[in-house]
């Protein structure tokens, strides 16, 4: 049997790697299915093969392949990062476009108009720092006070860098990419240059205060991420090889760079709205020790025995993920009744029936079961992660449902937690209240479904649902959720646009722009922030740049209501027309007719011909659907409102802070 790596080598030797790039991600998934042995070494090897790819040829053969532009710069040699980053992104079907800066010149690279990255529009700017960032500024001989001054200076510089990055992201042609810094490892070769324990302890404290302050910068700058290297180093071992550090300025080992690349790739994935939403778990030997069908409820354990405790620890980790908005589901080859009985009554279980949004215990193949779970939750198969101890079941799902990420577990339950968390499948830039409440919302969704099934018609259902919508400018605390909505919404996203929080804040601050959010409620409770409208005013009327609506609340008239009210207000304000755009993406075909259904007419093609431009002449405006209670506060559209067609802004070069 040939391994994934051998097949990649074959493709490379045949010159077919570009033409068959769609096979790369599945081959890498196969290669990482066995974390115990070869994967750690094989993934960088695969990265080396893939880094030599002709990007243009890949895109010619597979035009839909998403490209991630990553600017890489830092204190020391950074080129070594390209291979592992290529491999890690390729696992997610993403194609790396790396742009390397000059080492040691990261400030210039990242902020200067003459810098290499100016106008690049990088999705990620990786600025790889190391201990030299501070120590290169410490005189010889040195003491803790001198080091502390150097660290303060570096922190000030990095704060300035983050601020400048945020400022650039807010400018008209700013791209809002994410700047990535990292904590600096302190090594024994530093601490033990001091011979007295008191100074050493002070050095440790000063160094960690520096790292802590660096991590805290993320609270001030939403477009900044700081990767904490400490937990990565605890897993990978040595930070550097002193010979390669000394002779070749390689301040990090290949293993540590590979771990860093994995974090960065998951960050890139989450920023593209590819965060996984649901963890599907096997049961026997995954969630508990033993085979329920053979041993009965008394013969399984998740506590009390050495092995049982390991499963208990795994369940607690899963529960922790669930508390942060990861939906939990079960796919297990078992009879349904005994499984439900265990989840209700077995004394060892940390996870209970109410922790799961869907339990599929049956004897059908797992690829069909994961598809069924995705379907019932109204999410894509590519939002699922399966954790299973059986290699055969994993292979079956990898082949039958290749969009599903698969976590390989085996017969050593003490490793289950490590393996589940080895990849940041559920990483997200920021967690919102909606995330924390998600499992409850999906359970309420089930009640809604029951109401729908019990109602005579869809219209009856909507009347009984009592949908309320509030449409207004976002409040300060809502921007994080708003950014997340734009990043995660794929189906009802009329142009595919995704925006980062700083960009949204900049638009909301600009009186010529229209940023609105929709909050919805119904008789079952609060749905939270579920939709957003982005627009701007021009001489020829109002332009709707995009609309997003969470798939949880589709088909309740919310989208029709929001547009109807905008049309009404535009007409009342005496505007000439309302313009809109639709650009097809891989997932938004269902909303192609959304604007036409509301009376918009197609008037032409969008710039490059990929989308359509639409126009509503405001002569006949459909009313807001009557089952909807809609409260709209849109000051920027009201006649005589704060923006009555006049430009009162300071202008883009104004001295705003």
């Amino acid at each position, binding site marked *: 049997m040939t391994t994934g790596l051998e097949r990649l080598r074959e493709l*490379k030797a045949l010159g077919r790697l570009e033409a068959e790039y769609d096979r790369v991600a599945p081959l890498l998934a196969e290669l990482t299915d066995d974390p115990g042995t070869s994967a750690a070494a094989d993934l960088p*090897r695969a990265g*080396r093969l893939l880094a*030599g790819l002709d990007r243009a040829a890949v895109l010619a053969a597979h035009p839909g392949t998403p490209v991630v532009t990553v600017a890489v710069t830092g204190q020391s040699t950074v080129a*070594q990062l390209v291979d592992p980053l290529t491999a890690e992104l390729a696992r997610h079907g993403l194609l790396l476009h790396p742009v390397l800066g000059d080492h040691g010149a990261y400030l210039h690279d990242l902020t200067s108009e003459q810098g290499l990255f100016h106008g690049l529009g990088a999705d990620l700017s990786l600025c790889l720092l190391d201990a030299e960032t501070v120590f290169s500024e410490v005189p010889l001989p040195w003491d803790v006070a001198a080091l502390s001054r150097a660290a303060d200076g570096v922190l000030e510089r990095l704060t300035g860098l983050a601020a400048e990055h945020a400022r650039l992201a807010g400018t008209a042609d700013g791209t809002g990419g994410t700047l990535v810094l990292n904590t600096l490892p302190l090594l024994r070769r530093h601490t033990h240059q001091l011979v007295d324990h008191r100074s050493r302890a002070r050095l440790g404290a000063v160094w960690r205060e520096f790292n802590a302050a660096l991590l805290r910068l993320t609270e001030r700058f939403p477009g900044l991420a700081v990767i904490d290297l400490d937990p990565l180093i605890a897993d990978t071992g040595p930070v550097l*090889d002193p010979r*390669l550090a000394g*002779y070749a300025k390689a301040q990090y080992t*290949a293993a540590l760079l590979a771990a860093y690349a994995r974090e960065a790739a998951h960050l890139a994935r989450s920023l593209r709205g590819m965060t996984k939403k649901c963890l599907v778990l096997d049961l026997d030997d995954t969630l508990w020790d033993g085979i329920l069908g053979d041993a009965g409820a008394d013969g399984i354990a998740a506590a009390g025995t050495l092995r049982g405790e390991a499963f208990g620890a795994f369940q607690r980790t899963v529960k922790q993920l669930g508390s942060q908005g990861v939906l939990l589901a079960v796919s297990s080859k078992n009879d349904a009744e005994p499984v439900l009985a265990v989840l209700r009554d077995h004394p060892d279980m940390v996870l209970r029936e109410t922790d799961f949004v869907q339990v599929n215990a049956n004897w059908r193949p797992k690829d069909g079961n994961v598809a069924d779970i995705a379907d019932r939750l109204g999410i894509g198969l590519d939002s699922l992660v399966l954790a299973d101890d059986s290699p055969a079941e994993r292979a079956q799902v990898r082949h039958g449902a290749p969009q599903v990420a698969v976590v390989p577990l085996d017969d050593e339950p003490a490793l289950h937690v490590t393996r589940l968390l080895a990849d940041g499948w559920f990483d997200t830039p920021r967690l919102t209240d909606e995330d924390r409440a998600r499992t409850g919302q999906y359970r309420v969704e089930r009640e809604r479904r029951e109401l729908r099934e019990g109602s005579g018609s869809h219209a009856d259902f909507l009347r009984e649902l009592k949908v309320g919508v509030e449409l207004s400018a976002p409040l300060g605390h809502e921007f994080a959720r708003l950014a997340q909505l734009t990043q995660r919404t794929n189906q009802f996203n009329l142009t595919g646009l995704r925006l980062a929080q700083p960009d949204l804040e900049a638009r909301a601050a600009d009186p010529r722009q229209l940023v609105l959010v929709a909050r919805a409620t119904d008789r079952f409770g609060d749905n939270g922030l579920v939709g957003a409208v982005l627009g701007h005013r021009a001489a020829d009327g109002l332009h709707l740049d995009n609309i997003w609506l969470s798939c949880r609340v589709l088909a309740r008239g919310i989208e029709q209501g929001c547009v109807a009210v905008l049309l009404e207000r535009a007409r009342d304000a005496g505007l000439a027309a309302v313009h809109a755009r639709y650009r097809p993406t891989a997932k938004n075909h269902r909303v192609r007719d959304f604007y036409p259904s509301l009376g918009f007419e197609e008037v032409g093609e969008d710039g490059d011909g990929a989308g359509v431009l639409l126009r509503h002449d405001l002569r006949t405006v459909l009313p807001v659907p009557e089952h909807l209670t809609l409260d709209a506060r849109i000051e920027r559209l009201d006649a005589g409102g704060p923006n009555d067609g006049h430009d009162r802004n300071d202008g883009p070069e104004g001295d705003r802070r």
Partner: protein
Amino acid sequence: MSGIDDLGGFLRLLRTELGLQLSDRDAYTDLADVEGWDSLHLLRLVSLLEDETGRRIPVRQVLEARTFQQIHSLVAGGARAAAP
């Protein structure tokens, strides 16, 4: 894992692990003229060779070597003797 004691085996390792297209004559080509070679390959080569031989290799000399044949003579058999 026999293999890198002779020069042919060493070149095979370079082809597989570093993805380089090398002819046997490239053993004597100046590294600057080897197609696809860059200084990053040296860093990988160092850890690769230490994994392969289970010995410490003379890193500085390897980094300064001009041909694969020179690197090979530093690491095959008498590597220890060549260490500083």
